[in-house]
């Protein structure tokens, strides 16, 4: 579904990604793990069309999308829920959700709002409240809900557990698993290695702009080297 090949990207003269290749298949939950500054968000923002890559290719459903505008990419159903949530603080929960279907799935807006508040009952309680007044966890739910409003074919979640309490982190991962069980393809970008591997089908590890480890999540769980470098075990 998503196929990134030899992607080279960065900012101005600073190269961040030095040839990254990865794949996400239909209905798959794929995790991308890596520490701060490994290049995970740079990858996401190139995939979403916010930045233009230096080279390599990004294909979605077999169509080249590297260098396409964010609007075209959203139109195709590749939706990113960004790191730091990026909800619209000056707008209500409802309005945030409505803008999730600004370009895609607009005719199904009312139905999808129902669906989202069913998934996140907390949002229903906060429906008329400004997003800026929500807690971090609620904002993260809103950001994911807003992403779902576009009826994504592939959902990129960039560090959804960042800054959440351990209890909420648990809840978040349960939720991601639920989305996946509904048939949605998810590309999960995380620093939370253990929990990500528990729910993912496959995973990649990124270090300094390169994929260093890849494989089935279960195998990576038992990978000695990964355990040592990431889990300190």
């Amino acid at each position, binding site marked *: 579904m998503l196929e990134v090949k030899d992607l080279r990207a960065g900012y101005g003269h600073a190269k961040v990604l030095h040839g990254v290749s990865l794949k996400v298949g239909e209905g798959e939950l794929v995790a991308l793990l890596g520490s701060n500054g490994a290049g995970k968000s740079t990858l996401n923002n190139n995939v979403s069309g916010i930045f233009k890559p230096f080279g390599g290719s990004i294909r979605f459903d077999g169509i080249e999308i590297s260098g396409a505008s964010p609007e075209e990419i959203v139109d195709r159903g590749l939706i990113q829920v960004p790191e730091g949530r990026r909800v619209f*603080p000056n707008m209500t929960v409802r309005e945030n959700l409505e803008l999730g279907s600004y370009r895609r799935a607009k005719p199904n807006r009312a139905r999808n709002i129902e669906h989202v508040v069913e998934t996140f009952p907390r949002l229903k309680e906060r429906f008329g409240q400004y997003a800026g007044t929500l807690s971090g966890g609620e904002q993260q739910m809103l950001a994911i809900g807003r992403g779902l409003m576009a009826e994504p074919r592939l959902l990129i979640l960039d560090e959804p557990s960042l800054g959440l309490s351990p209890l909420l982190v648990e809840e978040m991962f349960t939720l991601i698993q639920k989305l996946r069980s509904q048939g949605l393809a998810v590309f999960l970008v995380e620093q939370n290695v253990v929990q990500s591997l528990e729910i993912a089908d496959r995973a990649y590890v990124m270090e300094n702009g390169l994929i260093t480890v890849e494989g089935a999540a279960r195998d990576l769980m038992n990978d000695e080297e990964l355990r040592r470098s990431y889990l300190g075990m």
Partner: protein
Amino acid sequence: MDFLGISLPSYSFDTVFGSAISGVFLGAIYALVALGLTLIYGVLHIINFAHGSLLMLAMYAVFFLWSGLGVDPYLAMLIVVPGGFCFGYLLQRSVIGRASHGRDEIILLATLGVSIALENFALFAFSANERNVQVPYDFDGIDLGFVYVVWPQVAALAGSLLITAALWAFMKFTDTGKAIRAVAKERQGARLMGINVEHIFAVSFGIGTACVAAAASLLAPTYAVFPQVGYLFVLIAFTVVVLGGMGSFVGALVGGLIIGVTEQIGRLYLGESLGLITISAIFILILLFRPTGLFGQRL
């Protein structure tokens, strides 16, 4: 009466109230000019120095539609408002946005440059002479007992209220309006929802220019047109925007009315030139107690 050593004339209640009423009508015009300015500030976070020149240009458009084709200045709104929108949209997309490379200080200078260019174009093309639109109902109006109100004043007030309400509803209920508010606070988030931020910038600039074009229509029957006419209104509109709270529509309306009333009453007591000092006085006074303006912060 005596105020800070200046002896003030005393007037009857009717005279003062009459001044206040005419201040409301004047304030409505300030509000309308400020409305476009506050929208552009709220979304693009820039002070649009070209706003006064755009007002001037729109007033010339109204004037020439009237003198050349005999179009009534109010009817001209149907042409200058859409025209203003397109002009503003293209100006932002092709000149200001392009020249600025996304840096706020350059946008500021770009609008200043546009303003100088437009003004000198007007001097060159239309000369520095004042021109007047004359309508048969210029001095017709209604006598409210204590004050005589001419129709152009009534139209200005009604127009300002209607346009403020329409703009508020547009921002609240339409997808484009919501996208404008989203872009104002969270550009990256908006991009990821497929909102074309550059398009929204230009739409905001277009709407701001359309507001100023509407103001031009409402002004034309009462004010002369000349290349520097924009300054008459835009300097006060800046005051109104800050007073009302930058980015707030309601603030622009209320701020405009406050300034209009203050100015008229100030003129009544302190005379035509010294009276203007009251604008600064009320401005400072309100900011002392509400540094973000009356309705600051929220768009």
